[in-house]
């Protein structure tokens, strides 16, 4: 707080009102989505018809709740599977990258570092189509050459995982590198002096130290994967992750089921977000 600066009280109160208005603006759409998950009406809009849990637990048409809506449940599972693989792959590769960039000096390091950052500035939809074009070309060439089918290279979950992995790895690398930079190498040297093998020292000393950062990166990866839309849209096959299913529903016209799913998503992200905050706090 800056003291000793003359400011008229009108200015101060206008400023505060503006800040308040800003936070109302931030909260408004989210609160609306949550509130209308409980409206006893077929459309998520006014008038308010009374409170109901039907959009969560209802099993009678037209009130089919989230927990009885098969396509949505299935797409939640799909999203979960994708997020799991994306998190696993990006944390593994991110850890390798962190060791490479923090521990090793080599020619072309600066260039590789810039290349590593590139996925951040490529629009998601472009990442999606470039991978789609490339994998289809490879699949066509391989199929022409061998006469076999390469379904893994056609739009589908494998491509979705690879597409999300292609940019989430950058985040994982940055998070894990930041932690590795703070590591005191003399700890590892002590382990080596005590007779540990180089790999043994890394496994027993460095990796446990890195674990909070790896876990935080994993949580962020899961969240980003669950929320990703642009890249996924271009690579998706017949099994649609949650965001794609919801998007298709939204285009057709919405029912409060979508509000209910959104509310559940918010609760889940809040829990994961808190978990990552706690992990980061432990890291400091």
């Amino acid at each position, binding site marked *: 707080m*800056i003291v*000793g*600066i*003359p400011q008229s009280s009108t200015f101060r109160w206008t400023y505060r009102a503006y*800040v308040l208005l800003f*936070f109302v603006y*931030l*909260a*408004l*759409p*989210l609160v609306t*989505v949550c509130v*209308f998950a409980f409206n006893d009406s077929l*459309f998520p*809009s*006014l*008038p308010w018809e009374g409170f109901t849990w039907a959009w969560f637990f209802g099993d009678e048409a037209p009130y089919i709740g989230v927990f009885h809506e098969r396509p949505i449940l299935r797409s939640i599972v799909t999203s979960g599977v994708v997020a799991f693989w994306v998190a696993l792959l990006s944390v*593994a*590769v991110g850890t*390798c*990258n962190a060791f*490479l960039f923090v521990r090793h000096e080599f020619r072309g390091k600066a260039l*590789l570092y*810039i*290349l*590593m*950052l*590139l996925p951040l*500035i*490529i*629009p998601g*939809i*472009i*990442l999606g*189509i*470039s*991978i789609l*074009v*490339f994998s289809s070309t490879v699949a066509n060439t391989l199929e022409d050459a061998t006469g076999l089918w390469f379904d893994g290279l056609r739009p589908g979950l494998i491509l979705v995982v690879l*597409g999300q*992995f*292609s940019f989430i790895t950058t985040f994982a690398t*940055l998070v894990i590198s930041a932690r590795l930079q703070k590591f005191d190498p003399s700890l590892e040297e002590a382990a080596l002096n005590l007779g540990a093998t180089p790999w043994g020292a890394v496994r027993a000393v460095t990796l446990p130290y890195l674990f909070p950062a790896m876990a935080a990166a994993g949580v962020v990866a899961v*969240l980003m994967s669950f*929320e990703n*839309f*642009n890249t996924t849209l*271009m690579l998706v096959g017949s099994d649609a992750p949650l*965001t794609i299913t*919801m998007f298709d529903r*939204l*285009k057709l016209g*919405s029912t409060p089921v979508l*509000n209910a799913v*959104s509310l559940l*998503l918010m609760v889940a*992200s*809040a829990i*994961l*977000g808190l978990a990552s905050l706690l992990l980061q706090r432990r890291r400091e």
Partner: protein
Amino acid sequence: MTDRFKLAFYLLLAPLLLWLVLLILLPHLGMFVVSLREKVGIREYDTSFANYAVFFNEPLYWNTFARTAYMSIAATALTLLIGFPIAYYIAKLTRGRTKTTLFLMCLIPFWVSELVRTFGWMILLRETGIFSNLFQSLGLAVGPVEMLYNDAAIMTGLVYTSMLFMVVPLVTTLDSLDDSLIEAGYDLGASGFAILREIVIPHAMPGIVSGCIVVFMLSLGNYLTPILLGGKDSLWFTGLIYDQFITRFNWELGSAFGFLLLGLSSLIVFLGLKLSGQSLSKTMAQS
């Protein structure tokens, strides 16, 4: 020992190279090659700039392109204007617990999927939505008001979606500004506006640049917000790319479009970094 060190180095290099070459470099190269293909028969192609010519000869395409660009610039400017006072308030006029709370409150909406946020705006803005009903019951409007499917709705959504990426770097840079500099300015008799112009903004420049770059990129590459809030006539360039790829199955033209969008986005990032004398790694570390 050195051999082992070398081995470890190559083992660490391998995943990085696989990732960058197979998922970033080759796909973009491939996309560029496809964009240069002109279909002359069934599975017969010539190399030419025909797809780019189509873009420049069809007013709908380049108008959409230009519109996407200036709408994104407008969204970036608006986000900066709205976000700057908030960042200043958080960084300079609060401290301790209030500061942390306000800062975290800025982050919360962004743990929620963009789809959910956009859905929220749809419920608020549409003809049967909250605002429409509110205006009618206040007597400000007769009959339902449609506030969805226009440019203002797209703008609202874009600014909302990008706010975090502006506020966080701004708070970080403003935080590092020494309060006594501002006080010294006042002591020397400068007006509030002069201090903002001479002290606060120059100091916050790295944050402003990195915020603007990220917000512009996100707006340019956004698909959900323009399509859902702008409706069928939103005329957003990513929508055209999607149409060419998925609806019309014209990958050659779609790739050309993709490359143009990538070019514009990279150009703006490059110019932003050059004009402000920042480097990519430093800017990205900030956001």
